[in-house]
């Protein structure tokens, strides 16, 4: 890309004297390059909206609380294990992984990896100046995408972890559909503009959603596959 080393930013305020001119590095956040924008006072514009938001949340939750009771089962009994025994819903993706992987992988390595990956996002160069994935270097990137997509799919297939394999294959296919999308229809143009970090995050959200839904609605006694309407545990 042929960008200037520094971008002059000039104040457009006609009455500001002296005129302010600043030199910005092109990788600074875009908002510093804005010089004309409408500003409003926080009170009342922001504060009133915040109060309304709070009220809406209170009302919605109150209606839920009136309509649906929180579950309360029999008193805890260490001698009577319900089948299946499930963690809270936000951990059921991990519990679903536990079905395929040894505990050290499903309970420690994979969640640890997720946290580390999330933390380093803003420090990885690729997340800061990534353009559309297929905008340049198509051949080399195609090989890399195919290789990593099939490597992940094969790795999880080796453990018969289909809830990860299927979305991985789907996402890799989508990636290739997006490759020559720049001249295509609306959807393909949209896909062609997606950056690599966005593809990876979308894959992660898709996999996490599928695993959580699987663990929550499709797992019955002995962690067997069941339909959601047959899910009640064995007494």
């Amino acid at each position, binding site marked *: 890309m042929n960008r200037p080393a520094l971008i002059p930013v000039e104040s457009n305020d006609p009455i500001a004297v002296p005129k302010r001119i600043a030199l910005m590095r092109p990788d600074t956040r875009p908002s510093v390059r804005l010089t004309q924008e409408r500003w409003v006072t926080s009170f009342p514009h922001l504060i009133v909206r915040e109060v309304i938001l709070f009220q809406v949340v209170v009302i919605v939750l109150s209606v839920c609380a009136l309509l649906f009771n929180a579950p309360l089962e029999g008193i805890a009994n260490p001698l009577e294990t*319900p089948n299946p025994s499930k963690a809270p819903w936000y951990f059921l993706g991990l519990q679903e992984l536990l079905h395929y992987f040894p505990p050290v992988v499903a309970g*420690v390595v994979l969640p640890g990896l997720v946290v580390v990956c999330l933390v380093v996002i803003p420090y990885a160069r690729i997340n800061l100046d990534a353009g559309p994935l297929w905008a340049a270097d198509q051949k080399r990137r195609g090989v890399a995408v195919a290789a990593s997509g099939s490597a992940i799919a094969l790795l999880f297939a080796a453990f018969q972890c289909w809830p990860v394999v299927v979305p991985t294959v789907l996402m890799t296919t989508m990636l290739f559909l997006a490759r020559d999308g720049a001249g295509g229809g609306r959807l393909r143009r949209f896909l062609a503009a997606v950056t690599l970090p966005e593809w990876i995050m979308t894959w992660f959200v898709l996999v996490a959603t599928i695993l959580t839904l699987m663990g929550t609605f499709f797992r019955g006694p002995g962690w067997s596959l069941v339909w959601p309407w047959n899910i009640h545990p064995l007494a």
Partner: protein
Amino acid sequence: MSETVLDRASAWIRATAAYRSIVRHGVLDTNRNRSLVIFENLFLHVHPIKVREKALRFTHTFWLGGITLACSVILVATGILLMFYYHPSVPQAYTDMRELQFVVDNGVFYRNLHRWGAHLMVFAAFLHMVRVFYHRAYRPPRQFNWVIGVVLLLITLLLSYTGYLLPWDQLAFWGVSVGTNMAKAAPLIGKPMRYLLLGGNIVSENALLRFYVLHCVVLPVALLLFVSVHIWRVRKDGGVQGPYDSDEGDQP
């Protein structure tokens, strides 16, 4: 405009020495007073005096951080009410839950509100993170605030998880047993960590007490600290950032 009794009463209150000692600015009808209300108030001064009009649009943030914060306020309020009735001991914890459910006035309502609020908070925090990612709002200068956000997500999960044990019913007991058994798998530190967390080798009365202290004292204090830094940094870093392209599009 005719002056109502209410107007006169409010004007009289505003003129009293006591009111003027508490609120130092006048009626909020000028930009000066609207600025004063923000920076003379401890709780409001996390806001800037002025915000970009665009930042108020629904699609700018979907208000997801605000929803998460609103949930945490509701959870503190209902949590304190629940604490008045709840004993973290076996089997008293469970009988307290039954009493809240069937005897205490509005007990079941506050418990439901606490439960559904907690679920919404986990969900909204996750959506907030995804929103910030797709809007590329983690870019400089907001890198570290993203990291604080990840810490906050973990604290939220821990809060929800420690609260899950407190009803001491079968759901709570086995849900926590499954989770803490997973932690056991961590090499070297797994078993000692689990022992420290549970106060023993199984989920027992000791674990209930420890989860209670974590849930009601340690984690809420940690949440308060990190949320304060998180919101303060939003302001210091130039306010909320919406869709990446919308910022680019407005260049003169």
